[in-house]
C-alpha cells in the first residue's frame, strides 16, 4: 500500500494530495464561487460596495459619459519625422543586437524597437554562450526602462540639480590624496575596468570593493589555489553523463543559468529508439529549480553540505578537508553516487554553491580525480561572471566607520540593502565625506547618498562585456536617454579629469569604447551588428583580493540544530534589484508557485493514508514567527514537498523599503538574519532558528498552482478504485463531470528504464482514445480535408523533458502580447492574466518527489468547447486551426472560460492598461496605480490590441507573428520556411522545449517532434483535438538511491 500510495500519483500540492475538503469542493465547483460578502470582509476596497443609489449614479454617469464621448470624433494628428532616420520605417520593427548585463548575470540579446522605442527582448542566436535563450530577468528588463521610479535628473541632497553642479561638487571635494571607496558588483566590462584604472591613477588612494550578493568568493579563491586562475571554470553540462550538484541552482540562478540549461538539456532529451540520458543528482535541503529537475535528490541539512562534499570526496579516494559526518540516508546515497561517478569517469561533473573555500577545494579535487578537467570543465576559457569578494566590502565599511573615507561611489549594487552588513553600511555612510550613488532608480543606497548621479538604463547605454575569456559582447543603445541621466563611464571619466575635448561629443563614452575595441584589432561595425565578437580587449586588473587574509582550508562541521534556515536567490527578483519589476513579481516562483513575495517553505511529511504532517501544523498562508537570537520576523509560510524535515527555506531580496511602487514592502527582508562564515564570507544558511506555530493568516495568498486546475485524480467512494470518467457514466458519480473523479491524462511520465513499455502503453491508450473519439457527430474528417489540410495548420510541440520551468517564456508572452499585471490581491482571487502558465506537478515518493513542469496555454482545439458556447461568436475557429478570440465582439459572458477544460481563458475584470481615462476604474497594485501611465505604456506592442475591461483573452499562438511571417513570404513570393515563424514563448526558451510550426509541412520540426513516440495530448480522451502536443517526461531516477 505504501508503495502504491507514493508512486502512482501525481499531485500539485498538499491541499490536493491530502484531499483537503475545502479544496476539493472548490475544484468540484470548477469556478470559485465566493460570495461577495466574503470578499468584502476585511478589505478596505470601497469600490466593491455598491448601494442602489451608487448603482443609479454610476448608471447615469456612464450613459452621460458614453453619449458625451460619442458626440465628436476626436481630431487625431499624425506627425511625421522632419528628417526620417534611414533605418526606421514606421510600422516595421528594427532589431539591435545588444547585451543584458546585471552584475555578473549575462545574456546576449536582440532588442526589438518600434518607432524608436524598445518593446521586446529576444535571445541572440549568434551568441556562442547564451544562444537563442533568455532568462525571465532578461525578458523583463525592457519594462524597467519605463520604470516610473527612475531618477530623472541628478540630485544633490535630494533636490533636483544639474550635471554641471554635480561635477563641480564632486571634483571640488576630491584631490589626489583623497581616500575614495568604489563599490560595485561584478564588472564584466573590460573597457569600464580600464576607466576605473584611470580613475585610480588620478586618485591613487582609491579602494575598490567588489561583491556579489550571491557570492562565489570561496570558489574563486579555491580555483586560484587549484588552477592558478581566479575565475569560474567553463562548464560543459552537455558532456557530463553524471551531474552531481551540491546545492548549486545552475538551472535557475547559479552563475550562468541560461547557458547551463541549454547545455544540460542536450543530454536530457530522450530519443525513444536509443533511450539514453544523463543522470543528475542534487544534494540540497529545500527544493530548488535545479533540484526539482534532478533525477534524484539527496537531502542534507545546510550545515551538512560541506560534510557531504567531504564524504563524497573521501568515497572517491580524495582527501577530505574536514568532517565527513552526514545523516545515514545521505551517506548511503552518497556511496551510490560515488560508484556512479567512478563508472562515468571523466564524463561526470561536480559543482557546488558552497561559499567555503575548503568545500570548493574538495570539489576541484574530485573533478580532478575523475579526470573532468578538459572534458566537462575547463580553465582555458574561464567565466568571469562572478568576481566579487564580500570581504572587500566589509573592509570598506569598517574604513567608512572609522571616518577615514573622503568619498564613496556606489557604481552598481545596493549595499544598503542586499547584504547582511546593510545596517552597518547605513551608519558608516554618515561618516563619509561624500556619498555618491549612480543608481538608475530609487534604492536604499541612493536614499542615503548626498549625490545621486543616475546612470543610463542598460537599453540607453553603450558598453561591453567579457563573460568568458575571449568571448566579447557589445551593449548598444536602442533609444535616446529618456531622462537627464549619464553613462556611468562618462561620469567617471569626467571625475577623473579626462581631457575636456572628449566631452565635446554627445557620446564621449561611445568614442572611448570604439577606440578601445579598434585598438584591440576588432572590427567595430561587425561587432555592433552581431552584438558579439571573439578576441580580447586590453583591460586592467582593478580588483584584487591579495590584500585580504587567506581563507581557511578546513571545512565547517555539521551543526546539531533542530531547525536550519536556508536562504536562496529567487529566480524572479535576484538579490532585490528587480523588485520593482511587476512582470517578475507576478511571474510565479517555479517551484513554490507563489507570486508577489517571499514565503517560508516548510516541510511536509506523509504519515500514512491521507494524512500529512506539516511543520508545527503550519498551513499555506499562515503567519509564523521566525526567530534567530534577538531577531524576530513574521513570515508567511507555504507547505513545500521535497523540503527536508528539520529545515526551512526562504528567498532573499524581498522586503525592500526604498523602491518604486511595485516593489515596496513586498515580502520580508531577511538579509539581516544572514551570517558570515569563519572567514568572513557570506553563508546562506543559519542554524538554530526558531519557528513558531500559526500566529495569523495572510489575507491574500497568491498560490497559483491551485488556480485553474484541470481536475485531480480521485477514488470512487463506492468501489475504492480509481475511476476514469469514460468508464462510468457521469450521473452515477454525482460529483460532476469535470470534477475530481477523473483520472485525466494531464501528465505522462516514465522512468528511463521503462521507456519501451511506457511507449507501448501510451500508444495503446492513445489508440483507445482515438477509437472513442472517432464516434463523433462532428464531421471532423470533412473539416480536416477542406480546411485544416489546406494552407496552414498551426501547432505546438512541447517537450516536458526539456522544460526546466524557468519561466522565461511566461514573461516573454506578457511582453509580446500586452498582458497586464494585476497585483497580489487580484491574483489571490484567481484573476491573474498570464496567457501561458507553467504548471508544476509532483509525483513519485511523497517525501522526496520528482517534479514535472508543464507549460500550458490555449490548446487551440480543433473541436473547441469554448467556441460552441459563445452566444455572440466572439470565439471561433480559423481555417488555419487557430482558436480565434475577437475582443471587440466579446460581451463578457465568460461561458467560454467555464467550458474550457484546460482553464486557459482569462477575463479582464478590470481595465488594467487604459484606466486613467476613467480614474474610478483604476486597479491598484500595492496600493498604487500601475500601468496606467504614458511611460509604462511605451512598452506596449503596437501590433496587439490592448484589451479593455469585460472581455476574455487567451493565447493567440502569437497570431501577429504568424501574420507577419506569412506576409514576408508573400511579399518575397516564396514558400513559408519552417522555423520562420516563432511564437514568443519559443524564442525565449533557453532549452528549445517549445517548437511552433505547421502540421501541413511534413518537413517541419514540429511534425518530426510529434512523431517521436513519446507524444501525447493533454486530456486527449475528451476529444477536443488540441493543437498542442506534449512529449512525455522521462527521468532517469536511480531507485537504488531510495532504498
Amino acid at each position, binding site marked *: 500500500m505504501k508503495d502504491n500510495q507514493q508512486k502512482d500519483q501525481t499531485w500539485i500540492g498538499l491541499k490536493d494530495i491530502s484531499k483537503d475538503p475545502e479544496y476539493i469542493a472548490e475544484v468540484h465547483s470548477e469556478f470559485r464561487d465566493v460570495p461577495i460578502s466574503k470578499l468584502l470582509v476585511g478589505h478596505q476596497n470601497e469600490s466593491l460596495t455598491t448601494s442602489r443609489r451608487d448603482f443609479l449614479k454610476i448608471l447615469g454617469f456612464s450613459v452621460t459619459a458614453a453619449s458625451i464621448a*460619442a*458626440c*465628436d*470624433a476626436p*481630431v*487625431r*494628428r*499624425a*506627425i*511625421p*519625422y*522632419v*528628417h*526620417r532616420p534611414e533605418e526606421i*520605417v*514606421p*510600422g*516595421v520593427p528594427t532589431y539591435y543586437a545588444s547585451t543584458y548585463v546585471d552584475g555578473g548575470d549575462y545574456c546576449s540579446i536582440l532588442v526589438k524597437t518600434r518607432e524608436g522605442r524598445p518593446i521586446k527582448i529576444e535571445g541572440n542566436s549568434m551568441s556562442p554562450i547564451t544562444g537563442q535563450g533568455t532568462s525571465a530577468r532578461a525578458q523583463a528588463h525592457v519594462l524597467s526602462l519605463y520604470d516610473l521610479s527612475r531618477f530623472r535628473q541628478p540630485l544633490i541632497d535630494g533636490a533636483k540639480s544639474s550635471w554641471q553642479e554635480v561635477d563641480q561638487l564632486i571634483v571640488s571635494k576630491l584631490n589626489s590624496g583623497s581616500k575614495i571607496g568604489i563599490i560595485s558588483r561584478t564588472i564584466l566590462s573590460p573597457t569600464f575596468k580600464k576607466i576605473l584604472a584611470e580613475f585610480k591613477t588620478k586618485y591613487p588612494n582609491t579602494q575598490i570593493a567588489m561583491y556579489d550578493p550571491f557570492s562565489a568568493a570561496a570558489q574563486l579563491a579555491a580555483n586560484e589555489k587549484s588552477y592558478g586562475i581566479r575565475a569560474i571554470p567553463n562548464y560543459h553540462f552537455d558532456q557530463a553523463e553524471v551531474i552531481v550538484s551540491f546545492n548549486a541552482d545552475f538551472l535557475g540562478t547559479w552563475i550562468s543559468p541560461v547557458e547551463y540549461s541549454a547545455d544540460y538539456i542536450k543530454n536530457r532529451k530522450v530519443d525513444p529508439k536509443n533511450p539514453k540520458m544523463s543522470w543528475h543528482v542534487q544534494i540540497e535541503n529545500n527544493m530548488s529549480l535545479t533540484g526539482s529537475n534532478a533525477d534524484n535528490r539527496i537531502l542534507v541539512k545546510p550545515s551538512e553540505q560541506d560534510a557531504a562534499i567531504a564524504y563524497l570526496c573521501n568515497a572517491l579516494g580524495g582527501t577530505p578537508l574536514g568532517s565527513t559526518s552526514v545523516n545515514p540516508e545521505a551517506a548511503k546515497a552518497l556511496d551510490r553516487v560515488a560508484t556512479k561517478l567512478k563508472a562515468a569517469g571523466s564524463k561526470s561533473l561536480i559543482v557546488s554553491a558552497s561559499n567555503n573555500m575548503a568545500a570548493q577545494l574538495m570539489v576541484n579535487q574530485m573533478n580532478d580525480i575523475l579526470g573532468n578537467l578538459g572534458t566537462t570543465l575547463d580553465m582555458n576559457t574561464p567565466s568571469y561572471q562572478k568576481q566579487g569578494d564580500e570581504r572587500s566590502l566589509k573592509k570598506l565599511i569598517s574604513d567608512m566607520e572609522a571616518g577615514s573615507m573622503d568619498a564613496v561611489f556606489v557604481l552598481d549594487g545596493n549595499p544598503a540593502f542586499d547584504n547582511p552588513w546593510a545596517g552597518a553600511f547605513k551608519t558608516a555612510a554618515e561618516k563619509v565625506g561624500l556619498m555618491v550613488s549612480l543608481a538608475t532608480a530609487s534604492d536604499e543606497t541612493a536614499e542615503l547618498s548626498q549625490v545621486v548621479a543616475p546612470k543610463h538604463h542598460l537599453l540607453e547605454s553603450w558598453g561591453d562585456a567579457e563573460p568568458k575569456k575571449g568571448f566579447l559582447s557589445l551593449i548598444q543603445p536602442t533609444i535616446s536617454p529618456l531622462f537627464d541621466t549619464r553613462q556611468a563611464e562618462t561620469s567617471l571619466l569626467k571625475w577623473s579629469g579626462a581631457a575636456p575635448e572628449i566631452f565635446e561629443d554627445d557620446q564621449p563614452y561611445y568614442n572611448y569604447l570604439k577606440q578601445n575595441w579598434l585598438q584591440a584589432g576588432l572590427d567595430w561595425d561587425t561587432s555592433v551588428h552581431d552584438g558579439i565578437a571573439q578576441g580580447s580587449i586590453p583591460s586592467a586588473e582593478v580588483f584584487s583580493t591579495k590584500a585580504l587574509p587567506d581563507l581557511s582550508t578546513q571545512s565547517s562541521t555539521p551543526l546539531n540544530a533542530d531547525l536550519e534556515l536556508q536562504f536562496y536567490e529567487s529566480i524572479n527578483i535576484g538579490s532585490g534589484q528587480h523588485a520593482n519589476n511587476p512582470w517578475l513579481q507576478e511571474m510565479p516562483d517555479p517551484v513554490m508557485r507563489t507570486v508577489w513575495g517571499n514565503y517560508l517553505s516548510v516541510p511536509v511529511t506523509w504519515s500514512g493514508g491521507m494524512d500529512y504532517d506539516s511543520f508545527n501544523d503550519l498551513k499555506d498562508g499562515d503567519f509564523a514567527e521566525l526567530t534567530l537570537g534577538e531577531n524576530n520576523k513574521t513570515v508567511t509560510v507555504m507547505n513545500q514537498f521535497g523540503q527536508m524535515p528539520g529545515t526551512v527555506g526562504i528567498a532573499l531580496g524581498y522586503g525592500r523599503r526604498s523602491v518604486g511602487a511595485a516593489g515596496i514592502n513586498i515580502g520580508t527582508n531577511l538579509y539581516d538574519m544572514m551570517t558570515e562564515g569563519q572567514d568572513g564570507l557570506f553563508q546562506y544558511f543559519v542554524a538554530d532558528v526558531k519557528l513558531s506555530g500559526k500566529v495569523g493568516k495572510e489575507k491574500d495568498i497568491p498560490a497559483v498552482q491551485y488556480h485553474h486546475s484541470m481536475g485531480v485524480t480521485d477514488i470512487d467512494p463506492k468501489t475504492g478504485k480509481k475511476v476514469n470518467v469514460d468508464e462510468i457514466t457521469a450521473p452515477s458519480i454525482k460529483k460532476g463531470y469535470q470534477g475530481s473523479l477523473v483520472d485525466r491524462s494531464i501528465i505522462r511520465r516514465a522512468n528511463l528504464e521503462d521507456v519501451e513499455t511506457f511507449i507501448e502503453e501510451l500508444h495503446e491508450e492513445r489508440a483507445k482514445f482515438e477509437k472513442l473519439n472517432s464516434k463523433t457527430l462532428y464531421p471532423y474528417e470533412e473539416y480536416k480535408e477542406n480546411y485544416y*489540410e*489546406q*494552407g*496552414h495548420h498551426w501547432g505546438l510541440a512541447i517537450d516536458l523533458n526539456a522544460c526546466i520551468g524557468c519561466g522565461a517564456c511566461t514573461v516573454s508572452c506578457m511582453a509580446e502580447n500586452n498582458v497586464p499585471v494585476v497585483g497580489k490581491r487580484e491574483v489571490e482571487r484567481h484573476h491573474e492574466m498570464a496567457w501561458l502558465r507553467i504548471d508544476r506537478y509532483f509525483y513519485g515518493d511523497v517525501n522526496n518527489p520528482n517534479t514535472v513542469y508543464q507549460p500550458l496555454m490555449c490548446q487551440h482545439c480543433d473541436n473547441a468547447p469554448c467556441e460552441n458556447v459563445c452566444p455572440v461568436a466572439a470565439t*471561433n475557429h*480559423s*481555417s*488555419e486551426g*487557430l482558436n*480565434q*478570440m*475577437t*475582443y*471587440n*465582439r466579446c460581451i463578457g459572458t465568460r461561458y467560454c472560460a467555464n467550458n474550457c477544460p484546460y482553464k486557459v481563458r482569462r477575463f479582464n475584470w478590470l481595465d488594467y492598461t487604459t484606466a486613467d481615462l476613467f480614474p474610478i476604474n483604476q486597479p491598484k497594485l500595492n496600493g498604487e496605480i500601475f500601468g496606467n501611465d504614458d511611460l509604462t505604456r511605451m512598452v506596449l506592442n503596437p*501590433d*496587439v*490590441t*490592448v484589451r479593455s475591461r469585460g472581455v476574455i483573452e487567451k493565447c*493567440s499562438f502569437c*497570431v*501577429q507573428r504568424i*501574420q507577419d511571417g*506569412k*506576409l514576408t*513570404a*508573400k*511579399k518575397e*513570393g*516564396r*514558400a*513559408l520556411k519552417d522555423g520562420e515563424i516563432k511564437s514568443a514563448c519559443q524564442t525565449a526558451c533557453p532549452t528549445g522545449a517549445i517548437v511552433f510550426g505547421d502540421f*501541413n509541412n511534413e518537413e517541419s520540426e514540429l511534425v518530426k517532434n510529434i512523431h517521436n513516440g513519446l507524444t501525447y495530448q493533454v486530456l486527449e480522451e475528451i476529444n477536443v483535438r488540441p493543437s498542442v502536443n506534449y512529449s512525455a517526461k522521462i527521468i532517469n531516477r536511480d531507485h537504488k538511491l531510495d532504498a
Partner: protein
Amino acid sequence: MSLNYIQRISLCIISFLFAFLLDLQAQDTAAGKNLFKANCAACHNKDMKSNMTGPALGGVEERWAEYPKEDLYAWIRNSQKQISEGHPMATQLWDEWGEKGGQMTSFPALKDDDIANMLAYIQQEFTKVPEAVETVTSTGGQSKQKSNFIYYLLLGVLAIVALVLSRVISGLNYIQDVKELGPNAKQRTLWDALTNKGFVALLLVGLMTFLGYQVVNRAMNLGRQQGYAPTQPIKFSHKVHAGDQQIDCKYCHDGARRSKHSVIPAANTCMNCHTAVTSGTTTGTAEISKIYASVGFDPVAGKYIEDYENMEEDKIEEIYKAWIGAKYMEDNDLASLDAKGERIVREQWRGIKNSLTNKQKTKIQGGIEWIRVHNLPDHVYFNHAQHVTVGKLECQTCHGPVQEMEVLEQSAPLSMGWCINCHRQTEVKGFADNKYYAESYIKMHEEMVNGTRKSVTVEEIGGTECQKCHY
C-alpha cells in the same frame, strides 16, 4: 357624434400630412445638394449635425430666425463684410469660430434661389433618418423616393380603411348592444379606442422598435467618418501632385509597399522636389514656406540653416519674411515691397506660425502636425503592404479619386462591412504565380493549374476570418 366625425377627418389629414411632409421639398434639394458639395462640404460636415472646420449647419435657419432672411443670405455670400458691419449674429459667430475655423470663403455668385435650395437641402439632411446603407450617389435616389411615396400612400389608405372598418364594427356592435341591453348600451368612442390598453401597448412597442432601430443604426455609424476632409496645416493638394504632376503615390507614401502604415512623408521627402520648386501653382509661397520653416531650409541661400533647432522665433520670422517678400518682388518685378506685398508677407508669416504651432507645440521648428484623415479603431489591424505589394491593389480602390482631390477626404466608409464585402469579391492576384500561395494551398493551386478553378477569392483562403484583422 359630431366630435367623433371631426376627429376622424383630422386624423386622416394628419396621417396624410405626415406621409407627405418629407417629400414636399424634394424638388429643390437635389440642386441644393450639388451646390453644398461644391461650396460648403470642405468645411461643413455633410451630416449637418457635427462640427468640422466650420459649425454644423443643421438648423441654421432657426438660429437666424430673429433676423430677416436677407441677413442670412448676405452672411453666406460674404461673411467678412457682415462681420465688419457689426451684425450681432455675425459677430457672435466670428467670436466663436473665427479662431478655430478661420475666415469663411465668400461666394458672391450665389443667387437667392441657390441659397434657398442649399438651405432646403441642409434642412432635409438635418432632419432625415439615416438609411442603413447609403449607396454611392443620387442616380437611384429619385425612383427610390417615388416608391417610398407609394408606400406612404398605401400606408395612409390602409390606415383609413382600418379606421373606417373599426368604426363600422364599433357601430355594428353598438346596434347589437342596443338590441340586447336597451338604452344602457354605450358606443365605444374613438377616444376609447385610442386610449385602450392594447392600442397604447402597440404604440409603445412600435415606438420602442423605431427607437431601437435608430439607436443601433446611429451607434453603428459612430466613429465612421466617410467624407471627412479636415483642413490641414498645409493646404497640400493631391490634385496638383498626384493628378497634374503625376507623382506616384508610393513615392511619398513609401511605407505602403513595406509597412502596415502608408506613412505620411517626412518633411525631407517634400524637400526632394521643393528645394527646386519654391513656389506653388495656386498658393505661391504661402504653403511651401511652411515646409521650409518646418525643416529649416533657407530658400534665399538655397541651403539648410545650421543649428535651426535652437533658433529664436524672431530670427526665423526674419528669414522667411525676407524670402516671401523677395519672391513677391521677383514675381511682380518690384524693387521694393508695396502695401499689398507687405500685407502678403504678414499674412503668410502668420499662416506659417499658425500652421506649425499650437498649444502643445510652441516652436515653429519640427514636424508638421497633419490631421489624420483615415482612422481605424485600435482593434483593427490593417497592413498596407499586404494590399499594395501582395494584393497589387490601386490606392484609389480604397482612397477614392485622390488625384482629383484638392482637399483630401475619406472616400470609403472604412466600415467592417465594406472590408468584408471586398474580401468576398476580390480574387487573390497572382495566386498561380506567387510561390507562397502555390506551396501553401496545394489543392486550390492544382485546381487552378488543371483549369477546374478560375479564381480564388480572398475569402476562400481565410480572408474573412476574425483573426486576420483583429488581434
